[in-house]
């Protein structure tokens, strides 16, 4: 029994039960299939992380964000908050700043076009969570995380923070607009 010492000293010479052997083979095959799915999706699938990231200073990143806002701002939203809404050209570098406790600026993108989105935090860890798409990415201070995204349908999307970042974590919410 499992709570008493073994009957044989050399237990590794035991034969296997057929049930066990069949199951091990099936389980191993399934694990191999799951492994292959990942590189397969990198080649044939449309949704992958870019593996493009840079070490950078938050202050420099914030400066790039401000330059982008200066060039492409179209309006402000949020009443007193005066959050700039920017409409960058397709294919360009877009900077999104995560900060305790806001996302800055608001992006307005065109459906069907691609954009290089850069994510960085100015202070603590934040979680970029695009809803209702449910794209969830970790945002670090000092690391510029780059992704090329292609919004598909027009509409109003939300960006919420899903990495706990202190007492006002739940107030960190913003918008992302996709236009035709």
């Amino acid at each position, binding site marked *: *029994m*499992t*709570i*008493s*010492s*073994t*009957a*044989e*000293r050399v*237990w*590794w010479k*035991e*034969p*296997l*039960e057929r*049930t*066990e052997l*069949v*199951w*091990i083979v099936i*389980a191993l095959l*399934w*694990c*191999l299939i*799951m*492994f292959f799915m*990942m590189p397969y999706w*990198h080649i044939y*699938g*449309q*949704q*992958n*992380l870019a593996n493009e*990231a840079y*070490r950078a200073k938050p202050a420099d990143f914030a400066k790039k964000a401000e330059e982008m806002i200066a060039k492409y701002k179209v309006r402000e939203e949020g009443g007193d*908050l005066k959050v700039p809404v920017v409409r960058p050209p397709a294919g360009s570098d877009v900077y999104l700043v995560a900060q305790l406790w806001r996302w800055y600026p608001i992006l307005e993108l065109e459906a069907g076009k691609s954009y290089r989105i850069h994510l960085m935090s100015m202070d603590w*860890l934040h*979680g970029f*969570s695009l*809803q209702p*798409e*449910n*794209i*969830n990415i*970790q945002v*670090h201070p000092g*690391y510029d995380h780059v*992704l*090329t*995204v*292609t919004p598909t349908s027009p509409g109003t999307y*939300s960006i*919420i923070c*899903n*990495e706990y970042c202190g*007492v*006002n974590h739940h*107030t960190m*919410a913003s*918008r992302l607009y996709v236009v035709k």
Partner: protein
Amino acid sequence: MAVNRMFRTCPTTGLLFHEPAEKLMRWNAVAAAVSLLLGGILAIGVVLTRWQAVHLLPPDMFYQVLTAHGLNMLVFWIIFFEMAVLYFASSTLLRCRLAAPNMAWAGFWLMVTGALINNYSVLRGDSSVMFTSYAPMGAHPTFYLGLILFAVGALIACFVFFGTLVVARAERTYRNSVPLVTFGAITAAIIAVFTIAAGAIILIPTFLWSVGLIEHIDSLMYRTVWWAFGHSSQQINVAAHVSVWYAVAAIVFGAKPMSEKVSRTAFLLYILFLQLASAHHLLADPGLTSNWKIFNTSYAMYLAVLASMVHGLTVPGSIEVAQRAKGYTQGLFEWLRKAPWGNPVFSSMFMSLVGFGFLGGISGVMMGTEQLNLIIHNTLYVPGHFHATVVVGTTLAFMGLTYFLIPVLFRRELAFPAMAKWQPYVFGLGMSAVALFLMGAGTLGVPRRHWDMSFAGNAFPHEFPGAAWLMMGAAGITGLVAIVGGGMYLLITVWSVFLGKRIVGPGFEHVRARDGVAAAPARPVAAAVTGYGSAGMVAPGTFTLAMVFLVAFVLYYFINWKYLSTVWPLK
């Protein structure tokens, strides 16, 4: 220093208890129960706040309570209990004296001190950083200090465990190889050693940073090293609860493992591959390549997953073989239908196995897939998953073992036996429902560790779909059911241990070392089991269940790839 050689023999089980070991097991079990009680009270705050119809606590208190709930449950309850399991698996199952009981006590008191200090830090209000305490979000120095002391205490206990294995060998108190349950405990203890090492590598510098001696902690480095500690600590729990499953199979059915070789190799796989598998917590992070992520979460993780799938077959398989030998051979499932479902030791163990596999395992492997991780990272899906693995899996298994230990270790009659019969179902089914609803809400995007999913008062509120709100309400209700189940367990155990009727039995007697030597083994039992299965399969019912599991796994896995394919193209 005189070595304590006082032992007593349990009249019902024949187990031999060493006096210092028995005392240590009791105290660790009590410390575990106190942590569970605290964690459970905190759970009320968590459940009634995330259920927004009630929204009980204000934000700062919610985050504080959530931090304390995680620590008391995931760290203190589980690890104190595991220390008791280690002493049982070594001293009791090997029938030998515990090595260095004074060291074991030092370890215990360090753990208690650490737990108190850590709880104090969260009580202060300035350390609501969650169990993960991600730098650069910092806590008060006592937060890290408490965890470090606790970890050191646990490490000492692990070394006492290893020392006891040496004593058993030296004093020849057992023959041949250690029992399988002890082998599983050794797995858990080995993993604990490198887990605690990883924890020290990250928490000591972070502690020094919190007192101003180190200037900067890189957030990516922190996460990478912390999760080497964080995930491995969960695998200690898996190795421990799988060992408990095997123990219960032997205790309740007299079951023998179908193959020592297969079960032990599966435990070995846990040790070899687990730490690398920790990478699955970092799939959405920058600065780590896809190659690294894929290698670690597949080659490495899948071999650990394979091990769990093996145990998922061999544990119920061994029960089926034992039951068929007793005559329950009708059809595929008579062995299971006629199993003692009214015995809380068994019902806990079986629900733990099914819940851990179907709910926890399948969801975990899905989340650990590089690209699929994107659609659930940091959503409520994650706590949904781990309430299935650590609560329905580990905690429920430990609860089942407690019902066995109350008469055998504590020598008290089980109080409220009718309640004990129902407790595993209330807790196990309640918590399984919680896991399902949280996973459902997470699939719809609801974030974890979040005080207000309605974003009331926010300039840019997000509106979650109605189904998400429904899930959250359902999670609130079933959460309360699970808490009642936990309360039942605590009532039964605390009452039994302190007020229950004593079981009279032989007391402790001095046993000389030479009298403790194990007898020469009887002629080995005939190999394998023959004639009890069908079509050469000795456990056809279990095999069928395993195939049902596989089908569920395959379907759920590909459904999630389908979900992913509808998301915006990203690269």
